[in-house]
């Protein structure tokens, strides 16, 4: 007798239902023992799943980040990096564009034809 009559009642009902569906003792004892599992996933299937999982994990771990070689990536990250078409941007007045003119300063060069 337990301290919970409600659970006792529920379990008793479950017990009756399962006892009614129990296989007969004699035939169960005397039937041939199964050599391999029946209607259960076989060990082979389980190992196949494990192998597939390992292949996926190894594939992700060894994946190359991209087609750009590492030295190129490092060069692009550097502030000194120059693009291959930078020469097209070199203009005659580049120096003037990069400097701030001083008040009163005169540059005679551009007035001489």
């Amino acid at each position, binding site marked *: 007798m337990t301290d919970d009559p409600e659970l006792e009642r529920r379990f008793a009902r*479950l017990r009756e239902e399962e*006892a009614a569906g129990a296989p007969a003792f004699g035939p169960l004892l005397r039937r041939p023992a199964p050599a391999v599992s029946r209607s259960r996933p076989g060990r082979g299937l389980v190992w196949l799943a494990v192998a597939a999982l390992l292949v996926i994990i190894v594939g992700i771990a060894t994946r190359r980040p991209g087609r750009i070689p590492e030295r190129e990536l490092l060069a692009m990250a550097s502030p000194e990096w120059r693009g291959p078409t930078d020469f097209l941007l070199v203009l005659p007045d580049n120096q003037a564009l990069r400097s701030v003119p001083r008040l009163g300063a005169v540059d005679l060069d551009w007035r001489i034809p």
Partner: protein
Amino acid sequence: MSREELERELERLHPAAFGWALSCCRGERTAAEDALQATYLKILDGRARYEGRSSLKTWVFGVLRRTALEERRREGGWLREPLSLLVGRAGHDQPEPDAGLLRSEESRRLLTALERLPARQREVLHLVFYQDLTIAEAAEVSGVGLGTARTHYARGKAALRRMLETMR
């Protein structure tokens, strides 16, 4: 005890043993029948010997529990839970639908709630409420200490009550 006497005792315990086998095999009827047969053969062949240190029922249930565990490990059962999580098994916490048994809605709810408990709590509750064992006998079958079994019993019972309340 002679083989014939053993066989008679096993037949007497058979309905209860089937219920315990179902519990050990998470409701899978085929696995339960296989484990039960393997246990009977082990006992009758003398590979498992009853030495009278406990009641016959307690001893048989202990052998059955270990046999079901061995069978489950051999069939890759230790991988079943993580694999089922990966492939997203529908109704993960549902026992095998009825296992060919006629079950009432109330019993299905009870089994669903039991399935959500940790294995040790589920075992102790089954052994005490379903099999009418004492907590001490349940501890012996489960291979745990008496104090541990009492803890599993108290916590399992409280959790089971809570789940059954929410399922109303």
